[in-house]
């Protein structure tokens, strides 16, 4: 089989890259190891209830905003029914130490009002923080679409500057407020002391500018891309794990799966950058590169209960409000396994579907997790798990359900777990090393992998290269195609669609 470009992986970054290349007239083949395409965007169904995994909401879909422009350019936008969160939608943040509750609205103005109401002594700091985020976002081309991409991307890959923690400590004394303003870190997985303001603003700014769900969830995004790709003649081969990259001379020649060889002069790899080393013969990369990829620090993982509730109306407004129980201070991501009260989050993305007959009964309970919690149960990928693992999983889920009942009302204690995701699940189903939910940690302490590699024709993309999240990964697909086809001309065309 022959193509001009092979894209490894059918997550949002691979789908975006393939669609852009097809639009440029390239013959593209996507290879996906799982039986169903879509990566983290896929939905799965239990007892008729559809559950989202990697898409609950996203910013950037308002008028003139980046995801809307990019997806319009690609042609998927008209296929999507986008649901803006209503004004009252918010992250309902309960600080476990003080019991204080803050509604973090998805709007700069409403958020500022709420924060000033709850923290009247911190008015200036609140203003200064929000202003700073706005100011930084104005220097980021994804939010100020008139800016060129090249200088920004150059700077992004060199970690420097002030951390979120430093900014918050310089402006604000109240540790509850530190926690509240740090909560966007849950959406990209880097602790406040390690993240620079550019990465933070890239998630916080769209969050404060308005967020959106999609009717039908992440699966609707996948389906929209598949329809567009089918029209463009892109082949998607599933159940095809790429085992190696083929090389002729000093140049990419294609890829090999367990079943076939596919020849192409460009290969885009969207999986985790560390796993790239398994696909390329040892002598191609220098040791320094291999060591750097091998030693990348990843984000932590999550423990998720996908549950059902018989009478969804008893849960209160879970449709447009996400409930969080977090600790005070800047270490909100640290998972203290000995501490009886854990940070926990609960939401119900499926309820936002217009046809919510099945979806409305689904609830997600989420907490941070780390590999250490499951390491003792690991018997290799996709091996049958032990009874001890299942017992641990069920007990951990019960604890969370019990905690939710205590925090948010009795109705929550009646949640019945239908599926449970642990670091092992995320490793096996999404190929994330140690179940690292957001892959590579875009931390100030390391250089994130770039798009180019030493091997001509081999390119990286995916959340590890640019940013985590649907927006980050879709933009990563765009940036990689830009590196191949010419970055600024592509960027120019995309931003005409705003």
């Amino acid at each position, binding site marked *: 089989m022959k193509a001009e470009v092979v894209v490894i992986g059918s997550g949002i970054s691979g789908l975006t890259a393939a669609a852009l290349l097809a639009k440029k007239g390239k013959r593209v083949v996507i290879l996906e190891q799982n039986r169903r395409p879509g990566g983290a965007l896929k939905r799965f169904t239990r007892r008729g209830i559809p559950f989202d995994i990697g898409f609950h909401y996203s910013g950037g879909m308002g008028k003139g905003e980046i995801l809307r422009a990019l997806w319009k350019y690609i042609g998927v936008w008209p296929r999507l029914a986008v649901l803006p969160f209503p004004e009252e939608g918010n992250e309902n943040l309960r600080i476990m130490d003080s019991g204080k509750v803050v509604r973090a609205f998805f709007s700069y103005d409403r958020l500022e009002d709420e924060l000033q109401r709850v923290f009247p002594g911190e008015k200036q700091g609140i203003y200064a923080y929000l202003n700073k985020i706005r100011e930084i976002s104005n220097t980021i081309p994804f939010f100020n679409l008139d800016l060129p991409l090249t200088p920004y991307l150059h700077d992004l890959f060199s970690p420097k500057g002030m951390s979120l923690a430093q900014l918050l400590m310089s402006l604000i004394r109240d540790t509850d407020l530190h926690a509240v303003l740090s909560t966007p870190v849950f959406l990209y997985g880097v602790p406040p002391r390690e993240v620079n303001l550019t990465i933070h603003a890239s998630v916080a700014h769209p969050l404060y500018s308005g967020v959106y769900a999609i009717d039908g969830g992440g699966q609707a995004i996948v389906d929209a891309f598949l329809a567009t790709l089918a029209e463009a003649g892109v082949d998607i081969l599933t159940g095809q794990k790429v085992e190696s990259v083929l090389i002729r001379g000093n140049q990419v020649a294609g890829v090999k799966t367990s079943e076939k060889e596919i020849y192409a002069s460009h290969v885009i790899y969207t999986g985790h950058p560390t796993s790239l080393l398994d696909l390329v013969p040892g002598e191609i990369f220098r040791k320094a590169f291999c060591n750097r990829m091998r030693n990348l620090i990843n984000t932590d993982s999550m423990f998720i209960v996908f549950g059902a509730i018989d009478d969804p109306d008893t849960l209160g407004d879970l449709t447009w409000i996400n409930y969080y129980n977090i600790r005070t201070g800047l270490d909100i991501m640290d998972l203290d396994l000995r501490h009886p009260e854990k940070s926990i989050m609960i939401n119900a993305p499926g309820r936002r579907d217009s046809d919510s007959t099945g979806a409305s009964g689904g609830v997600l309970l989420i907490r941070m997790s780390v590999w250490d919690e499951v390491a003792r149960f690991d018997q290799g990928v996709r091996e049958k798990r032990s009874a001890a693992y299942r017992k641990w999983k069920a007990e951990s889920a019960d604890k969370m359900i019990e905690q939710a009942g205590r925090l948010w009302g009795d109705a929550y204690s009646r949640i019945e777990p239908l599926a449970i995701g642990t670091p092992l699940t995320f490793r096996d189903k999404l190929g994330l090393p140690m179940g690292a939910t957001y892959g590579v940690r875009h931390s100030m302490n390391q250089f994130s992998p770039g798009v*180019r590699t030493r091997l001509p024709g081999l390119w990286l993309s995916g959340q590890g290269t640019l940013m985590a999240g649907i927006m980050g990964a879709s933009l990563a697909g765009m940036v990689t195609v830009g590196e191949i086809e010419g970055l600024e001309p592509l960027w120019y065309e995309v931003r005409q669609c705003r």
Partner: protein
Amino acid sequence: MISDEQVYQQVTQIMAEEFELEPESLQPDATLYEDLGLDSLDAVDMVVALEKAFGMKMTDEEAVRSVRTLADLFDLVCRLKNRQVTKE
């Protein structure tokens, strides 16, 4: 504290191992890009390898970019090492 001589030896060793370069080619006046054949992609890997080995940060991009020869690199690493010691 390690001496400049030790820094010199360690940098040479790291370059030889991590970039698979012949030790004889690692002369102080060898240029990284022309003589040793490194490119801009290798630069980040080099910084990461040196940061790890010496436990320091090479965040001053201008300084890194102005490095042309191995001697420049030794100087930069020594300077950063010494600054670190003064700070401590």
